[in-house]
């Protein structure tokens, strides 16, 4: 396929969903069927185009890719900077390289599965519901068009981000997704909770949407600073141009590698927000207020992946920043945040009772894994885990949605609308009621835990461990050791809470009437689960290292490693020649320590989880067996380390106070309005005085003048008697008088007479 064709196809990838968005919003808003059909058409088109482009790239020879990673690149001149004709223009465009291709495969497939699932989830075809904005209790979602419109926009935004060839288009896609996450999390905008003390805490969806948007916004501001810094140093936002070896070397000389490290930290701030790392992780658990397909797409397939995708993209910059000439603090910060987040979120997930809540913290934790991997320089490992995580986390979310759906079926049948269908304490025994959901959930859960060999999660997690161990054992990097240990503990906890979740949900006997009357979901929902589970298993096999015993030589080609690594292979190689980076894309030698650790933690966690929760499954009303042993620690974990409360105290309350009291009441109403009122009153008063002046002086003066004239006229009126004779007489008298005067003047006195 020619490059021209590929370029066109790449531009068209986001066009399908974006066009679907506009068409749904403008035209098919009233018809639910037409809306979801349009949305499906959009994503299917994107799927076909994306896989075409990606497969085309995959089919290219790896060595060719190493030298020329960017298979497709195209840009349009967009924003004139400086002189309109002479100056350079900021360009905006696309680029496809191996990293993009694998992202395209994962993102389009998972989003398509989610779209298919959504039609079933929102119960299209079931009897009509009554209340707007209230989640499904077997009612047809009245806002389905709106849902698919935003989902399509979201998909379009993510695809824009993936094919972006520069930070500008990436940022545009980033912000589109930010907005869509707000509207989708707050999809059921009218929903309010009436909670009892024992219930799982919930905040209303609209507040959750605002929380998500604001938290990521904080991150986006810092990221924007990073983008501006990027542009000022490199003169372009294009990845291929700015992040090439020559460009980075030049930048390292002009501004210094430490500055480049600072720049990468600024951009990393965006990831901290978008991928819910500590300290900006607080929005993600509350984002569970949105419908489950939304949770799947945001927290598995797309949005959080976008954050990690960003730092994977700018990895050369980060590498220079934490390289020999840069500052090791960069790596410490990135890996530190990642590892800490991974561990913290894993501990919280252990004590959560909401089925989606566990998955939320699980997502945060896994993203921490990826961020930590980047922090230690494991480019390929991070990318690999991102892809596999996308598949199995989407699978897990969709399966949990199926579980919730089943529980809601049960709630409708027993007419109990007060029990939270998402609370795992009321589930149990769903293995028999919802078998397809059970098996797919199990596969996803095992993948998440890193069950050896057959699940994708194992291979990707193992690669992270291997990279970190290699850094420590061969290079002596203490940071890598710390990361290794923390991630190992986190992986243990991951397996543990996953097994806990599976046991509580599916094993044993139903603990409430809801679970008793649950039944399997419809085909729209189960088929995507099956398809995703295929990928959750198989994708991992593309990344088996060649050095792995037995299996390695069988495959004899770590396809993923070489393919993804080819994106920056050349760049890192040249940079390491210039002694600007420590890391390079290398094939790791086999080491038993990381493999053993990952086997131990995965199987160990699963076993202990089964031991506590699965061997003797909980009965109805029985309290979680961890509550008493852990005591106050359990409460601490259940309340999510009290981060929300801390932020409320530190930031939210002062800000609200500032805005309500200071700005609104004092400044706006008091000073500004007060000044305006003062001016208004003064002008009013002035007008009153002017009116008095006008009345008395001006009008009065004119009136006085008029009265004088009238008085004079009254006197003169008596002259007009109407009698002609009198007029004649008076005129004659006056005439003679005048003539006499003339005569006297001209002719002298009577002396001349006679």
């Amino acid at each position: 396929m020619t490059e021209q064709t590929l370029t066109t196809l790449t531009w068209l990838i986001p066009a399908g969903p974006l066009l679907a968005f506009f068409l749904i919003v403008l035209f098919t808003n009233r018809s639910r069927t037409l809306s979801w059909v349009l949305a499906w058409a959009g994503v299917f088109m994107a799927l076909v185009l994306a896989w075409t482009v990606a497969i085309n790239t995959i089919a290219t020879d790896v060595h060719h890719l190493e030298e020329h990673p960017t298979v497709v690149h195209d840009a349009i001149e967009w924003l004139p900077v400086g002189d309109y004709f002479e100056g350079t223009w900021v360009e905006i465009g696309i680029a496809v390289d191996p990293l993009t291709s694998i992202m395209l495969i994962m993102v389009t497939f998972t989003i398509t599965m989610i779209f298919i699932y959504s039609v079933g989830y929102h119960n299209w075809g079931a009897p009509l519901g009554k209340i707007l904005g209230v989640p499904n209790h077997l009612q047809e979602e009245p806002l389905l068009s709106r849902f698919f419109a935003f989902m399509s926009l979201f998909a379009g935004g993510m695809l824009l981000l993936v094919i972006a060839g520069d930070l500008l288009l990436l940022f545009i896609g980033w912000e589109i997704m930010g907005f869509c996450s707000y509207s989708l999390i707050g999809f059921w905008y009218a929903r309010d909770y009436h909670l009892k003390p024992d219930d799982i805490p919930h905040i209303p969806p609209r507040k959750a949407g605002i929380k998500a948007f604001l938290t990521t916004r904080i991150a986006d501001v810092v990221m924007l600073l990073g983008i501006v810094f990027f542009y000022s140093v490199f003169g372009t936002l294009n990845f291929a141009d700015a992040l090439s070896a020559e460009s980075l070397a030049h930048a390292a000389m002009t501004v210094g590698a430490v500055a480049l490290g600072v720049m990468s930290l600024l951009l990393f701030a965006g990831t901290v927000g978008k991928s819910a790392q500590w300290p900006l992780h607080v929005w993600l658990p509350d984002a569970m207020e949105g419908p489950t397909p939304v949770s799947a797409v945001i927290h598995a397939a797309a949005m959080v992946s976008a954050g990690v995708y960003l730092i994977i993209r700018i990895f050369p910059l980060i590498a220079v920043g934490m390289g020999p000439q840069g500052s090791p603090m960069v790596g410490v910060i990135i890996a530190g945040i990642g590892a800490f987040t991974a561990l913290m979120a894993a501990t919280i997930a252990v004590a959560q009772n909401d089925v989606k809540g566990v998955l939320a913290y699980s997502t945060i934790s896994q993203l921490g894994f990826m961020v930590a991997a980047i922090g230690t320089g494991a480019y390929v490992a991070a990318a690999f885990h991102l892809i596999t995580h996308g598949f199995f986390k989407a699978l897990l979310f969709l399966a949990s949605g199926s579980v919730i759906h089943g529980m809601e079926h049960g709630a409708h049948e027993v007419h109990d609308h007060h029990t939270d269908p998402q609370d795992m304490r009321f589930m149990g025994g769903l293995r028999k009621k919802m078998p397809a959901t059970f098996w797919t959930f199990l596969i996803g859960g095992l993948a998440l835990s890193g069950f050896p060999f057959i699940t994708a999660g194992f291979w990707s997690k193992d690669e992270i461990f291997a990279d970190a161990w290699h850094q420590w054992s061969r290079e002596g990097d203490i940071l890598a050791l710390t990361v290794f240990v923390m991630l190992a503990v986190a992986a243990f906890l991951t397996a543990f809470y996953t097994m806990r979740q599976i046991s509580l949900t599916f094993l044993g006997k139903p603990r409430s009437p809801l679970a008793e009357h649950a039944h399997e979901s419809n085909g729209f929902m189960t088929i995507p689960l099956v398809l995703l589970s295929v990928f959750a298993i198989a994708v991992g096999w593309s990344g088996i290292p060649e050095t792995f015993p037995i299996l390695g030589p069988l495959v004899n080609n770590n396809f993923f490693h070489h393919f993804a690594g080819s994106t920056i292979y050349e760049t890192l190689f040249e940079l390491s020649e210039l002694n600007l980076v420590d890391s390079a894309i290398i094939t790791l030698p086999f080491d038993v320590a990381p493999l053993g650790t990952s086997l131990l933690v995965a199987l160990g966690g699963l076993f202990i989880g089964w031991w506590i929760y699965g061997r003797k499954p909980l009965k109805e009303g029985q309290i979680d067996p961890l509550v008493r042993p852990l005591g106050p620690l359990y409460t601490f974990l259940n309340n999510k380390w009290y981060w929300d409360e801390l932020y409320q105290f530190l930031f939210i309350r002062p800000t609200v106070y500032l805005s309500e009291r200071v700005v609104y009441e004092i400044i706006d109403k008091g000073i500004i309005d007060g000044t305006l009122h003062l001016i208004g009153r003064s002008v009013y008063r002035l007008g009153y005085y002017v009116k008095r002046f006008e009345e008395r002086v001006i009008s009065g003066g004119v009136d006085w003048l008029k009265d004088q004239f009238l008085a004079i006229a009254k006197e003169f009126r008596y002259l007009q008697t109407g009698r002609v004779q009198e007029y004649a007489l008076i005129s004659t008298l006056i005439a003679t008088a005048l003539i006499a005067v003339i005569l006297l003047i001209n002719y002298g006195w009577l002396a001349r007479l006679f």
Partner: protein
Amino acid sequence: MIPLSWYLLVAAALFCIGLYGVFARRNAVAILMAIELMLNAVNINLVAFWRYVTPEESTGMAWAVFVLTVAAAEAAVGLALVISVYRNRDSVVADDLDLMKN
């Protein structure tokens, strides 16, 4: 031998008598009679000047004839007006015709 000035003085006197009548008489017809006197005075003036200054030409006499004619016409119309006013207002007293008062 009568100097021209005697004729002129007579005409002036006649004129002034007529003037007095115009100013002082109440009855409208009396005022009109006084006006006729004034016109006659004018005519005497004209004819006197004609005879004394340019007797060969007929201008003076022609003029006097025209004055006569006009006086006749004016008397006719004026009296018709007086009669009409008398019919409408039942009075020929000039003082009563003060519609233009004030």
